[in-house]
């Protein structure tokens, strides 16, 4: 009887461990997948919005490590602001602010000319905003699982050309 009881307890324990492991693993995978979906959607919308704004704008007004100001085609100013503290990227136009990204670990704007460096696909860097015709933007966003920054991250980079050419 004792042997039978010990066998039963052992088997039950093994089954329980297997079930818990499967549950935990499935749960983490599920959360990770949900995170990826949410990250992907946010990134896509953010890059779509930024791409459209940059293509349509008249010119770059100012740029820093955490912000980019554009003169929109309608004369309004569009400001993209990255907050390293809040880890957000916001877009502000005509007093209306929209949060494009959350959980943003890093973000960088780089200005370039329209001129391409010979033999490469890169552009010459713009010394001033007046020379800026290409904006290179890249960011890295993460999500956590149970408070841990696991493997859920999205890195987005794009090089966008201001389409307006006329004087």
């Amino acid at each position: 009887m004792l042997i039978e009881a010990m066998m039963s307890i052992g088997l039950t324990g093994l089954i329980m461990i297997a079930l818990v492991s499967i549950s935990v693993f499935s749960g983490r995978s599920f959360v990770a997948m949900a995170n990826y979906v949410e990250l992907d959607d946010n990134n896509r919308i953010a890059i779509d919005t930024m791409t459209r704004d940059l293509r349509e704008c008249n010119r770059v007004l100012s740029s820093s490590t955490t912000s980019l100001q554009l003169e929109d085609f309608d004369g309004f100013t569009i400001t993209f602001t990255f907050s390293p503290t809040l880890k957000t990227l916001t877009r502000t136009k005509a007093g209306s602010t929209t949060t494009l990204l959350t959980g943003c670990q890093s973000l960088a704007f780089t200005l370039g000319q329209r001129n391409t460096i010979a033999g490469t696909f890169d552009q010459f860097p713009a010394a001033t905003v007046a020379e800026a015709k290409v904006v290179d933007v890249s960011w890295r966003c993460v999500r956590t699982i149970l408070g841990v920054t696991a493997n859920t991250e999205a890195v987005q980079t794009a090089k966008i050309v201001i389409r307006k050419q006329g004087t």
Partner: protein
Amino acid sequence: MKISILPRRGEQGHVLLLAIIITGLIGFILVTYLTLVQSQNASVMRSQAWNSAIPIIEAGVEEGLAHLTAHGSTNLACDGWTQVDNTYQMTRFIGENFYVVTITNFVQGSSNSAPIIDSKGYVIMPLVLTSAAGPLLAAVNAPAAGVTYLGRGVRVTAARDVLFVKGMVAKDAIDLNGNGVSTDSFDSSNPAYSTGGLYDPAKAKDSGDIAVNASIVNSINLGNADIHGHASTGPNGTISMGPSGGVGSYAWRAAGNDGIQPGWSASDMNVTFPDVSAPFNGGGFTPSGGSVTNAVSTYTTNSSSSASTIVYPANPPAPGAGYVTTNSASSTTYPSGSPGPVSSAITTNTTWVNVKADNNYPAAGTYIPPVTTYQVTSGPQSGRGTYYTYQLITGTTTTYTYPIFTIVSTAVTTNTATTVASYDYILDDGNYQLSSLSGTVYVRGHAVLYVTGSTSVGGLTIKPGAHLDLYSNGSSVGLAGNNTANSDGFAANFGFWGMPNVTSITLSGNAGFTGTIYAPNANFTMNGGGNNTTDFIGASITKSVTMHGHFNFHYDEALGRVAATRGWVVNSWNELEPKNIPKATVDAYGHLVFTSATGNN
């Protein structure tokens, strides 16, 4: 004895129920998971299609711009483009995808036209492609039945890409190696910045920009030149200058600053310089020379002693020969012959009277109140009694006031001087062609002169209102003499076009120049010399520029609006709302069907 222990009724099916619940739970989680994955997959697929529409759209935009450039001066309804009213349209497939591009708001021949290009790109939905298309679909260009497209569109406003938006432009280098060299600008179409359309130093502006496309060190050597404008080089290009040289605004330079004013230089020059083609193939006339008689009238005014006064309305002197003063006069008779305006005032005449009250009280209207009554009680009996004293109205007088114009005129003498000048070539309206050009040219129409060989212009006179486009394919071009310009001074009236063989252009002999030079393969040298300050008015685009001696370069900003263009560029770029993009599908017969969109594509 066998004892059978049956489970209690209430415990039956527990394991089965638990298994069903757990299975259901796991199934639900699995379905949710798979749905999430499927949604994500669809979202990514759609995003790919959404983004892949942009190259298709841009292809449409480029075709629209290219079509405007190629046929904008003639007729847009060609090369497969169809016209409905004022809309020109083209549909073109790129693999399985396609774009529909339209041009509207285009006014043929108008320099102010701002065409609108709508380019709508359609790409096959990847999910649909995967599910509905066969393996052959990717190999053919025709749309397959049942295919649904994702549509996206852009509206572009095009603007002319004007050639002469800067004063002095070179592909490789600019060397302003002389004393008294300067640049500035004016605007021949704006009286505030020109006098009679001509350069006026008192109205000069500071847009005498110079630019070099090259990315080489010291691609601009300013020496001690005074650049009232901006200086640009290609990326990594640099500017060198002497101790007194300067680039900046008039105000900044006038404040005693040397060097480069902050914000007045850039290193992002990026321009293509297309070659010049022959203006026509055959059929050009050979011009001949001759004499041209010019009658020039001059007016001499003598204002020292012959001034005279004439009372209006005598005939006034000729305009410019006198001046008019206005005075005022009055009379009681109406001023016949006065040009007016005449004003009048009526005065009532009165006299004081004393009459005895034995008489009647003065009748109304015959006096001006008040009437004073007094008594006389002494003296002769006949004189005693009551008296009235008042102002008796005796009549009225009308006074007329009117202006008198006094004209002080001076004697004017008109002298007409007639000159006869001989020219080697006289050009009227039309196309002309020469194998070589050497001598003087007179232009009195709208002419195009194509010189296939050496070109040496000894003097060029363009009659006011006339225009010359001079094309040359000779290796060396000389512009010399004191009259290498159009006589009314509008740079837009003379254009020199250097074809690929033109490698050298020299402007010398104190020659003044008014016009434009476009010769992207030519080294342009301006040899001033002497003490004269020779002016270049207009704009130039060449391979290099070397400026010796006293040269003042005046860029005419009007050239940036009215002169030659090299095509069309994007002036604004805006995405169309999805509701403005018709939905595209392929019907059972393989035809494209467009339906109005009501929401997102």
